[in-house]
């Protein structure tokens, strides 16, 4: 019997196909988020209450608005990063144990396209949660921000930095299933050293240097500088923006490479399904 004709047409453009496959992955992630939307709402409420508790503790029982103006961007960045890490890691682990990670590999999609689709879905969840928190807290406490274009680049880089952190954690989960527990520790470190409790600028020098390696910390610093009315150039001249660019690029590259390498290793070890 001769080979039957292929029913799947050849794609006209490899890039176009990969873009479609990535958007399919992103749409799946958003659908899965929608199916657990009650958990997303609970997460937003808990993050908000934790932040208010910390703010009251730092303010000695009072909300100090000037301090809140500086720490709120860090909360929002932390929310994006922690959701990316927890849901990214949890999603990969669930897919390994559920067998769907193997099914996703029966696709012409490159691992890069698939993981970027995943990250896009995590971005939607993180940004939606951060947006709700920002609107509620700003309106509730009457916080005043000088929003202008100079803040856009630091804001964007902060989000990408946080997502890249989530990507790296998700990539590690492919081979280290127990990474989920460690992720909570990493998220606590971001909470403490990312500027959510007190601005990084008031840290002792040693801690400030340490904080520069923490995902989102540099972004929050640059964001606070521009939101205070300083031009973007100020973040460049004080070294925050260049380091933020490097930090984001390196984290993103390491996350992508780790994911692709770990998928390849898992194929060698038969680790795409429960071990």
């Amino acid at each position, binding site marked *: *019997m001769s*080979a039957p004709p292929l029913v799947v047409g050849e794609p006209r453009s490899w890039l176009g196909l990969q873009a479609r*496959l990535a958007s399919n992955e992103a749409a799946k992630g958003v659908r899965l988020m929608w199916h657990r939307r009650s958990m997303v709402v609970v997460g937003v409420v808990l993050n908000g209450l934790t932040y208010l508790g910390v703010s009251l503790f730092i303010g000695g029982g009072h909300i100090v608005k000037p301090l809140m103006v500086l720490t709120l961007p860090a909360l929002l960045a932390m929310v994006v990063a922690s959701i990316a890490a927890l849901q990214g890691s949890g999603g990969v682990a669930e897919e390994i144990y559920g067998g769907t990670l193997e099914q996703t590999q029966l696709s012409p999609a490159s691992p890069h396209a698939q993981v970027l689709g995943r990250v896009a879905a995590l971005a939607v969840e993180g940004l939606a949660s951060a947006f709700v928190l920002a609107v509620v807290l700003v309106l509730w406490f009457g916080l005043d921000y000088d929003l202008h274009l100079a803040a856009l680049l630091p804001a964007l880089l902060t989000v990408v930095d946080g997502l890249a952190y989530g990507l790296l954690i998700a990539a590690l989960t492919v081979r280290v299933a127990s990474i989920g527990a460690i992720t909570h520790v990493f998220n606590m470190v971001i909470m403490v050293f990312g500027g959510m409790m007190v601005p990084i600028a008031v840290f002792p020098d040693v801690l400030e240097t340490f904080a520069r390696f923490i995902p989102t910390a540099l972004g929050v610093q640059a964001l606070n500088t521009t939101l205070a009315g300083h031009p973007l150039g100020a973040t460049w001249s004080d070294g925050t923006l260049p380091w933020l660019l490097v930090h984001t690029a390196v984290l993103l590259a390491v996350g992508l490479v780790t994911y692709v390498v770990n998928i390849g290793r898992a*194929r*060698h*070890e038969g680790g795409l399904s429960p071990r």
Partner: protein
Amino acid sequence: MSTGRTSAHPDSLASAATPEAPAAIELSGLGKVYSRGRSSVTAVQSTTLSVPWGQVVGLLGPNGAGKTTIIKMLGGLVTPTWGTVRLGGYDVARQRRHAVRQIGAVLEGSRNVYWPMSAWENLLYFGRLKGLRGAKVKPRAERLLTELGLWERRHESVGTYSRGMQQKVAVAAALITDPPVILLDEPTIGLDVEAARTVKDWIARLARTDGKTIVLTTHQLEVAQELSDRIAVIKEGEVIADLPTAELLSRHAENRFEIRVAGPLGGLADVLPSGAHAEPAGEQTRVLLPDGDRQLLYAVLNRLQSADAPLVSVAQARPSLEEVFLRLVNAEPGPSGGTVDGAADVTETAR
């Protein structure tokens, strides 16, 4: 072991010396060794197999024999330590993007689909996962869900379905792009009788009506016997038998007679000669004579007639696939590297 067909990439057919279409599945010297710390485990030894289009191959073996590893290497989910896999002429390692579009798979012991999502959402996702556009996927998803009796509940989460319905969704997801090759790893495991029957009927339809090439692993040997055109038995990572199902069974046909009479055993045992064996077989009684002696056969038939036992059939004894399978996997290796107890004969493959 294989038919040794030359495979050619479809794009290169024009320049190929023989314009023969590639086989659906071509395994060449395929092997897999898993590293476990300092030790290693050979899951699959050098396996060569060629499956033509439209054939149903039953891959049988005891637990840990290497069936699932072979299925996963076919899909590119496990990287072989040595050897190659070609699907429709595409090398899974080097032309993965094309190769994976040839297959749909239902894998063992896993959900295969997203339980929080609905059946409809799952089918759209898996269709697009293979690169199809939504407009092409939707009509097929509608047809599959209607045929499987899931259309009315298509928007409910798969997690709320019964196990049988979930497996139907997994089968539908594997078929959503109408791939020519289907890999089914224990597709009826854990299903109740009715659900298993539905899935089995579907597999039969895929094979007989739709002409799909199917690789099936199952521990339910009656399912394998009913569905498979060909059986490959694997033991400790090695193919020890690879033959058309009928030929495998006939090779193990015994040189003795089997008589079937209607009704229960009753007092039949009293009229049988020594060495003959009677056992119930459904609503009949199966009498196995000790050898192929025709005089003895006539004598027993006379005795049965005298005892008013209603004769149903007389035939050469043919073992079930289960009996053949057990003989093969329990046979000890012979001195020449083959197997004893007749199994050495079947290590030869179909030509």
